[in-house]
């Protein structure tokens, strides 16, 4: 064993205490800052947002119809839940990503353009979102996110997601796992 390896270092007790205090402060500050970055459209319980696995909690459940006979058997369906202010952009971008792999429908909490989807349901009362078991976001407004329905019309995945288009690769990952 070399002299260097044989030489052990023991920090002073004051240094050890400093390490703990510094680690505690850094952790709490970083954790607090990250928490403040969450917005009104996020899930109050972040453990329930974008969980990454199928059949969480009470799933699977039968998928209620949204529009144009969808979700229907034979092909997976992605059901978007959007607010009117950014519906146009989200619909357009998500449809580009998932149209080849699944049918796409949208549930809007108010009237808005939503290109690229097979059907749109305007549901200001939020009954459809409730039927899908979508959680209420932090601001108490309509949920923004999506549900993934398999080819036997069962809801297999659902999550709040303030920007589904930004995470469209995740939607594809879930679709691939059905």
């Amino acid at each position, binding site marked *: 064993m070399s002299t260097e390896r044989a030489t*052990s270092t023991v920090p002073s007790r004051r240094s050890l205490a400093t390490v703990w205090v510094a680690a*505690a402060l850094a952790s709490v500050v970083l954790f607090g800052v990250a928490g403040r970055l969450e917005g009104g459209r*996020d899930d109050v319980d*972040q*453990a329930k*947002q974008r969980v990454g*696995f199928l059949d969480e909690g009470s799933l699977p459940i039968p998928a209620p119809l949204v529009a144009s006979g969808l979700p229907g058997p034979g092909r997976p369906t992605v059901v978007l839940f959007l607010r009117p202010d950014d519906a146009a952009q989200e619909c357009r971008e998500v449809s580009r990503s998932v149209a080849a792999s699944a049918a796409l429908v949208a549930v809007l909490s108010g009237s808005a353009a939503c290109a690229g989807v097979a059907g749109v349901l305007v549901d200001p009362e939020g009954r459809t979102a409730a039927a899908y078991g979508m959680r209420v976001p932090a601001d108490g407004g309509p949920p923004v996110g999506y549900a993934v329905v398999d080819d036997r019309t069962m809801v297999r995945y659902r999550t709040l997601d303030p920007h589904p288009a930004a995470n469209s*690769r*995740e939607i594809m*990952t879930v679709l691939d796992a059905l």
Partner: protein
Amino acid sequence: MTAAAVRVRGPWRVCGWCVFAILVELGLYASYRGHDARFHWFTHAFVGAAAALAVMTVVVLVGRRPVARPLLWPMLAHVFAMTPDLLFGAGYVHRWWMNLFLGHIRVHFVPGRNWTWLVVYLAALAAYLVAVDRVRPPSVPA
């Protein structure tokens, strides 16, 4: 090990492997794209670090000396704990067997969520530091 072989030093000496460990952690944080995914970074960082610190504590008490490169252990445990998230990024959905990675899925759902793991991590860190302090030879000042 003789007392003469033990030297006291402060915790702030800059070292390459410390910088490496910190850079890796920053990279892991950045890998969780989206503000809402960072919750998961904290979960697995706290869980991984707590597990590593528990092992480190045992190693210190058995070996009667501080572990080498102490920042690397939590970092490596963090990488192990978040492996399913790396797989998710590569297109593999989470499965329940992935709890083998330090309870990757289950740890998200403990009461108190990440606050619980923060407390566990800080307790594990305290235990490790106390263990390091206990292996100090009597001739070395505290």
